[in-house]
């Protein structure tokens, strides 16, 4: 896209736009270093700021996406308070706390990865990224076992509650009637943690991509903004969980 040939200025010069001379054309994108200033940015700094702002705005949309679900949770919880307490008793606090610890640690390793990139320490960056990936995977594995447990005991949303199709009995006799409230608790539980898990998966994909780019040596103290942006995203995923955990597991 970057066009080195400057077209001639129009002869009919506009009176209100004072035309300066073009800045020197930017060199062609140098693929090797992975770093270039796109033609429409006046400097690397502007480009960097713009990217960062873009990511922050994206994070705002994510917050609103979950915000809707949090509102639904609040509404149903106030309507079916006893059922929500009963429902939260069925969640494993041990698994939840472990997962919280795992995810917080992964946020730390992610931050460290960005820092090592800033310090030009490629080996360390790679190490921290791999660690982050492993923590993320651990999180999902634990989550899988939790889901499996609920599935097996029929603690599922809406029509699936109590597994009418599979003739499974509810583990908790107190729930003999497929009460509306409990099924709604599990609705919010599965939808919110499910969408969160999708975000973890996407995050793992992004981190893997960063791994590849780091190993190709594309980041340095001069240029690490993609890595930093993925880091921001990963912290958001972490923060959302930090809201989900107490709401679902602790206060019910």
């Amino acid at each position: 896209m970057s066009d080195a040939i400057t077209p001639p200025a129009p002869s009919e010069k506009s009176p209100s736009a004072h035309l300066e001379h073009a800045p020197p054309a930017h060199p062609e994108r140098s693929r090797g270093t992975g770093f270039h200033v796109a033609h429409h940015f006046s400097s690397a700094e502007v480009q960097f700021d713009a990217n960062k702002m873009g990511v922050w705005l994206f994070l705002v949309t994510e917050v609103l996406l979950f915000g809707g679900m949090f509102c639904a949770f609040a509404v149903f919880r106030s309507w079916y308070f006893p059922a929500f307490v009963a429902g939260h008793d069925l969640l494993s606090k041990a698994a939840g706390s472990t997962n919280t610890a795992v995810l917080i640690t992964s946020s730390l390793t992610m931050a460290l990865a960005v820092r090592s990139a800033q310090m030009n320490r490629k080996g360390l960056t790679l190490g921290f990224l791999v660690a982050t990936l492993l923590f993320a995977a651990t999180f999902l594995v634990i989550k899988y076992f939790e889901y499996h447990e609920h599935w097996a005991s029929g603690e599922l949303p809406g029509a699936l509650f109590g597994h009418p199709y599979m003739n499974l009995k509810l583990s908790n006799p107190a729930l003999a009637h497929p009460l509306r409230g409990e099924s709604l608790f599990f609705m919010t539980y599965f939808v919110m943690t499910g969408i969160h898990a999708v975000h973890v998966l996407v995050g793992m994909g992004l981190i893997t991509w960063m791994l590849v780019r780091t190993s190709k040596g594309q980041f340095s103290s001069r240029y690490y903004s993609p890595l930093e942006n993925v880091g921001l995203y990963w912290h958001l995923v972490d923060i959302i969980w930090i809201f989900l955990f107490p709401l679902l597991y602790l206060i019910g």
Partner: protein
Amino acid sequence: MSDSTTPAHPERSAPAHPERSRGTAAGTNYLNAQRGIKSWLTTLDHKRIGIMYLVSVLTAFLLGGIFALIIRIKLLFPGHYLITRAQYNELFTLHGAIMIFLFIIPSIPASLGNFFVPMMIGAKDVAFPRLNLMSLYIYWVGAAMALLVILIGGVSTGWTFYAPFSEGPDAGHVILMTVAVFILGFSSILTGLNFIVTIHKLRAPGMTWFKMPLFLWSIYATSLVQILATPVLGITMVLLALDRGFHIGIFDPRYGGDPVLFQHFFWFYSHPAVYIMILPGMGIISELIAVHARRRIFGYTFVAFSSIAIALLGFLVWGHHMFVSGQSVMAGAVFSFLTFFIAIPSGVKVFNWLATLYQGSISLRAPMLYALSFLFLFTIGGLTGIFLGMLSVDVHLHDTYFVVAHFHYVMMGGTVMAFVGGLHHWWPKMTGRMYSEAWARLSAILIFIGFNATFFPQFILGSRGMPRRYYAYLPEFQGLHVFSTFGSWVIGAGFFIMLGYLVYSLKAGAVASTNPWGAASLEWQTATPPPTENFPVQPVAEHGPYDFEEVVAAQAALEGSAS
């Protein structure tokens, strides 16, 4: 108005600027810099993306419009006629959904906005050109899914997808449609995000916030709404699809869920979305009035901040669509109270536009005709919003044709008038050709008359008790319906004429000069059509966007020397 009152086009009389005639190397512009379909499909140039968006949204408009014409023809007779009930329900659903999600929401920002936002701030492109192209592809995917829905048998929920009807057996292909809407939402978010960053980071030297053309303020406000509201639509569509597909129970009373919650979710997006629709239109009107009356906008700062005020207030009033849904009296009162505040910044705009016309130099070219139509029609649409905002009155008017008339007056009479006005205004810049002024005025007048004939009777129908979304109706309503249908044919004629002369102008229109209207904002200070990087050298904004004296004086001088 006679042609002599309008700025002449030097190109027409004398080939004073040979470098701008097409084909020569010096005349390279964004259209001919590269050739072939592939160069379009892989372009990162915001102008080309804007053009592709323009063609796409106009196609959607055509499709939605044809559905509307069929609906109107059916309503000529009260009973069974021409199409079945099921077909009717699918038609108004698709008409509404296409007009809203495929046409009006992307319309101005993604087409004219994409093309002119960077140019107006003196930038070479939007901040994220790749994201920009991606948003177009996402739009196409969403549109393709919506078309697929039509092909495999439609959906009949109304554009509002109210649960639990939309979860039932007779609602059609709801899941596919919700996925399409979800995807289209992404496209809208990307556009908004891009514009916010572009306006923050890429303004030319000298382009302070208060030297920006007002169109940019309104696009900025729109983008805020797009970013803050659209994710909620996204999650709503996901939840609806899950509820329909797996009966997770969130909106389904059989499992303790709440159908009214769906409405809260839906309107939390869709009310702010009406300001996604109108704000860019208001921005265009500011440009049209300023340029075609050659007068700086009266109360610039008020007009600028009223856009932001509308955007923010718009988040607080969604419950006015639900006065009779069974929400509490308290909620109804609060939402009604807040609704009225939106009338104030809207009024500020209308009055400031009027004050700008005062002592202006008003040319009645087509863009101005559309701006005047906007003022007339939007005022009616907005003022009938006041009827609907009044609690006791809305109880009577809710879900009648009064509401249908209200929103057509604001959406079609407001946004669409602004859109086509802007299309004419910037047509020379985009295509390098002039459209035919005589035909353009004819179609503007036809559309204005046809529009009022179509939709004014619907106010009367509605307040007399004709519910909306009715296939069959009481015989006493027939007269007004027939009138309305005739009106829709006049609108149709107007738009088809427009399509005709616009396409014709591409082939045979007069070559346009750099600045045919004598406008002062930056997009007019570069070649027509613009070169790929917009400006050969980095422009600096020294003057405000509405300082017409110098521009016009310079043009006059130039023409004097040329002749």
